[in-house]
């Protein structure tokens, strides 16, 4: 790809980007949130039409008018958004668009069989091909998307942040697949914000910044991480977790969870969080961590147990009560659970607080904008224009907006589910620093993350969850990654 | 129904089909050009269609009439607006077939107060001051005629099963027809044992009749309020292969009359509900606007009310009515 330019109304998303991918290589695409990675690969996949520039496929210039055209040519893509159809079964989703059919009549058994194979190849034979995708977790949906990409025998497979919703185990599984593909001479474009993954799997790297290529085809081997980061961010970022944990400021717990359980999803959990303390929930995807904090928050109706904030018990299954008593939740699936996609950024940020700004039910949008603006700049939201429609923000920036909401709200207990999912290194560091800052101010934080070292780095205490059971609780200092994984494995197979 | 009493009709009102049996008399001489506004219900249905067409044709007969036909509507709010428009435009006379008489009384009164004579057709206003002249279809009388005919036919069978297929049940006129029907049946000790309501459409008539015939395994007589839906009613009867009863129609459409004429149909009679009312209305409106009287009356002024007669058409007199009947 040469000199690709993509202009959206109001934005010049891509401004002369070059990308050269060789067969049989894993080409990593790096860049901050909003750098233009997704836009670039969408252009490559035929989902967007470039405003300028040319795409060469095996030498000759091609025009990719649609994803169908791209697929026909042998370019398969795993898009960043979970673009699956809830109403269809796993198998049907995998073969959507190139159904196995004779004269329009589906070959169901064959589809299921091949789906089973693909899923097995991805190490997820537990997902039945007949299951409705709507009932899968975010991770499950991601797996389905990967299977779909594999289902076309493509010469180029593009993966836009596939690891975002996956945990270590699954990422390793994915890498095994990628390696076999590479050995088979398939070219792969791999996008991720986790640099260590790049090290693991990448051959060459292209770095984007503000829609321009700042570096093309660097060899992974001889490019230090620090260099990459400075290329991406244009500055140096320290990737410690915003300094050491501050630790609890007082002994009286602000959040007390006692025997909380949701029958069928997770068994009773009991723990408490003190002001300024960070409690991390580690575990594999599907372990039920989200469910635990969603239930704690009242978003799901607990079948047993109590939750107390500052000694006051919360009404079961009442989010309103939880919010009023000072809890905030940044949910896992920001698009479906967090954002009003067609509303301006500031209205998304003040979604939980606009009533507070209002006088006698009359809104004060000026104050709202101001507050939103403040957080947007603090989090270096790109672009910082809070009037913009949040739909047009890049994935990572949308995540920042979600955090901004609760920062504006301000709360005693903050529940973060995958807060750094899809967030670039720079923003990541900011978010870590932010969490530190919050704890310093005495906020209690419950953190769910699939990146174990993130949990270990941020949390004072760690709870390891497997199959809806808490298999271990203890100080972060007394446990390391391998230990966690072992626990998870045992738990899972116990 | 052209040659019906009372008087005005004897000027041979044209059939809905429009071909006019030319009106004699000084009144047809060209006078000052007058604008007449007409507003009626939505013309989706044969009878109303005939009404509207009849009015149009009648107006076309006179070069001294400029006719303003507003969109037929079943929304009284819209119909009120149409009358208001006519008032604003200062038409010389207004002919109204209100979707609901009471609902248009106020605006009609406004028109009268504005000095525009209003001719009320078919569905009566709730105030005598709302119209200069009323050409009244007789819905109650229609029911009575149908009831009486059935009584004669079922002479002496006190346990006879009589069924009724009404039109749109929420319309006052349907209520009047049913009331008259029940009244007349009562006089000979009969009553309606099964009643269903359709919607004046062929499909509706067919559908409710199919159900009715199932619900009543044995019937002696049926009155169907409306010959438009009658087509569907007959289809259902034929489909069920039933013929133990006789049927009386309503409104008096040409194809029902042909059924009657044929003699081998379950349809023995139909109660005419003149579709020429609006045509008469237009004619009277013109006279009023031109300050003419009704030549066939000794008294000069156009009368306040003309109540149309609802005759029963049977095999004996069908030839007389068929020519001027409307095609449903």
């Amino acid at each position, binding site marked *: 790809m040469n000199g690709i330019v993509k202009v959206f109304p109001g934005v010049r998303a891509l401004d002369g980007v070059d990308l050269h991918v060789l067969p049989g290589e894993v080409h990593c695409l790096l860049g901050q949130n909003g750098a233009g990675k997704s836009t670039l690969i969408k252009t490559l*996949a035929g*989902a967007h039409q470039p405003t300028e520039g040319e795409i060469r496929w095996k030498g000759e210039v091609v025009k990719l008018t649609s*994803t*169908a055209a791209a*697929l026909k040519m042998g370019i398969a893509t795993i898009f960043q*958004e979970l*673009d*699956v*159809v*809830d*109403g*269809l079964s796993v198998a*049907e989703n995998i073969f*959507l*668009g190139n*159904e196995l*059919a004779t004269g*329009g*009549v*589906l070959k169901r058994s064959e589809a299921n069989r091949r789906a089973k194979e693909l899923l097995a190849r991805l190490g997820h034979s537990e997902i039945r091909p007949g299951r*409705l995708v*709507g*009932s899968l977790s975010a991770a499950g949906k991601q797996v389905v998307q990967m299977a779909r990409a594999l289902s076309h025998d493509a010469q180029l497979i593009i993966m836009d942040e596939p690891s975002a919703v996956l945990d270590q185990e699954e990422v390793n599984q994915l890498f095994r697949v990628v390696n076999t593909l590479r050995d088979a001479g398939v070219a792969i474009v791999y996008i991720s914000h986790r640099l260590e993954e790049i090290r693991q799997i990448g051959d060459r790297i292209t770095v984007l910044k503000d829609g321009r290529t700042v570096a093309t085809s660097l060899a992974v081997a001889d490019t230090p991480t620090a260099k990459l980061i400075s290329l991406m961010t244009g500055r140096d970022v320290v990737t410690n977790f915003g300094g050491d944990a501050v630790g609890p400021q007082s002994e009286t717990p602000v959040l007390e969870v006692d025997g909380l359980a949701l029958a069928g999803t997770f068994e009773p959990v009991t723990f408490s969080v003190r002001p300024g303390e960070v409690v991390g929930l580690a575990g594999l995807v599907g372990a039920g961590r989200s469910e635990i904090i969603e239930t704690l928050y009242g*978003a*799901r*109706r607990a079948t047993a147990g109590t939750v107390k904030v500052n000694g006051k018990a919360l009404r079961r299954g009442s989010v309103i009560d939880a919010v009023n008593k000072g809890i905030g939740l940044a949910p896992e699936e920001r698009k479906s659970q967090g954002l009003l996609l067609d509303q301006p950024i500031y209205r998304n940020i003040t979604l939980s607080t606009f009533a507070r700004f209002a006088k006698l039910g009359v809104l004060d949008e000026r104050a709202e904008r101001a507050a939103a603006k403040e957080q947007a700049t603090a989090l270096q939201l790109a672009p910082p224009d809070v009037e913009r429609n949040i739909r047009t923000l890049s994935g990572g920036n949308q995540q920042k907006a979600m955090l901004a909401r609760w920062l504006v709200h301000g709360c005693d207990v903050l529940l973060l589910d995958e807060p750094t999912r899809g967030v670039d290194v720079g923003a990541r560091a900011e978010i870590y620093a932010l969490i530190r800052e919050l704890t310093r101010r005495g906020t209690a934080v419950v953190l769910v993350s699939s990146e174990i070292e993130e949990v270990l780095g941020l949390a004072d205490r760690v709870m390891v969850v497997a199959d809806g059971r808490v298999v271990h609780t203890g100080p972060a200092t007394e446990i390391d990654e391998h230990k966690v994984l072992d626990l998870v494995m045992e738990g899972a197979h116990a | 129904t052209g040659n019906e009493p009372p008087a005005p009709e004897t000027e041979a009102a044209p059939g809905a089909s429009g071909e006019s049996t030319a009106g004699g008399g000084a009144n047809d001489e060209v006078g000052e050009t007058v604008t007449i506004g007409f507003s009626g219900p939505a*013309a*989706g*249905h*044969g009878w109303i*269609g005939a009404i509207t*067409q009849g009015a149009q044709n009648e107006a076309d007969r006179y070069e001294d009439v400029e006719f303003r036909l507003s969109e037929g509507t079943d929304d009284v709010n819209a119909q009120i607006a149409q009358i208001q428009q006519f008032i604003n435009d200062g038409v010389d006379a207004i002919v109204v077939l209100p979707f609901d008489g009471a609902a248009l009384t106020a605006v009609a009164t406004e028109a009268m107060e504005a000095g525009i004579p209003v001719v009320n057709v078919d569905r009566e206003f709730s105030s005598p001051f709302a119209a200069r002249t009323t050409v009244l279809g007789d819905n109650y009388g229609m029911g009575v005629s149908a009831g009486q005919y059935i009584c004669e036919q079922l002479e002496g069978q006190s346990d006879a099963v009589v069924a009724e297929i009404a039109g749109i049940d929420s319309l006052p006129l349907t209520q009047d027809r049913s009331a008259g029907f029940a009244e007349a049946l009562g006089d000979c000790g009969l009553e309606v044992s099964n*009643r*269903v*309501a359709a*919607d*004046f*459409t*062929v*499909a509706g*008539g*067919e559908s*409710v009749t*199919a*159900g*009715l*015939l*199932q*619900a009543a*395994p044995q019937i002696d007589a049926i009155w169907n309020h409306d010959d*438009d839906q009658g*087509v*569907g009613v007959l*289809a259902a009867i*034929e*489909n*069920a292969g039933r013929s133990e009863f006789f049927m009386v129609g309503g409104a008096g459409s040409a*194809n029902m009359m042909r059924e009657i004429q044929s003699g081998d149909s379950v349809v023995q009679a139909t109660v005419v509900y003149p579709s020429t009312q609006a045509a008469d209305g237009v004619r009277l409106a013109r006279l009023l606007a031109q300050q003419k009287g009704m030549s066939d009356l000794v008294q000069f002024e156009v009368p306040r009310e003309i109540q149309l007669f609802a005759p029963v058409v049977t095999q004996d007199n069908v030839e007389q009515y068929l020519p001027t009947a409307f*095609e*449903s």
Partner: protein
Amino acid sequence: MSSSSGTTTATGADQVSVDANQGEATPARKAKLGGGLGLGQMIGLVVALVALIIVGTVTAGDRFLSVPNFLVILEQAAVIGVISIGVTFVITSGGIDLSVGSVMGLATIWATTWATQNLAGEFHWIVMVLTALAVGGAAGLINGLLVAYGRVVSFIATLAMLVAARGLAEIISGRQTQVITDRGFLDFFRGDILGIPMIVWMFAVVAVIGWFLFNRTTFGRRTIAVGGNPEAARLAGINVKRHTMWVFTLAGLCVGIAATMILARTTAGSSSTGSLYELDAIAAVVIGGTLLVGGRGTIVGTVLGVLVFQILTNVFTQNNLDSSVQAVAKGAIIVAAVLLQQRFATVKRR
């Protein structure tokens, strides 16, 4: 509109989810959404049917519980049933079709004009059938083109079609009922095979084909994808526009078939035929368990939905109920049914 019914029992479970979409999203709901239109729902609909049949039998005895009566019910269900099957595809694809009723009216008129009937007389009555299908298909195609390529929101596009088709029908027919003269047509479509009326067979055939098309073919699966997540469908390489266009055309063809059936029943074409059928059809489809927002549908549910409607009406007629009382009862039954199904579903979940 008038029609609506106990059917909803049927889909309480689903209604929840649909509604949850506009109301509140609970994990329970998610789970159910996941569960999809499974047995639970079908059971619900069947329960509703059985309940109605019991009521009918108790109140109207064997006058109700008789083969001829059920044939009448099926005959009445047939027309709206065929339309509803087409509408199921449209709604599942995320659209809506308000024009079915008036297009059916137009088709009945066009198929019975003096010209058409003459032609039919000279050649064969099939001409009338083809005319009806052509009119329906063409109208559907136009809807589809407007929605897919004209990018007119389907509510507006089909609303325009509704108004225009009705007007056109009135102009062509001069607002007069056009009686069918061709015996061949009537004999064929009003006849029966093995004691089952022709149009009931037609309904059955359309239903089976519809079911197969919906559940066993690429077309059906893509319809769900287009309705459930157009962006995903597009990225998967599906030509969303073209598909949308075909879905509306399909619905139009169903309307054409329905027009032939209503012609057989009424033996006459009329511009007023089919008015308000759109609401009956949409109600049957939604009550049957198809998501109004698109992405999920069920042909079986639609068929059951239509049947419950008809049986309810039939029971009312059998008991010679006053039409107003019928209306109130209907409203109450709908709600009661859904709420009951709520509980039912909730209990099942625990």
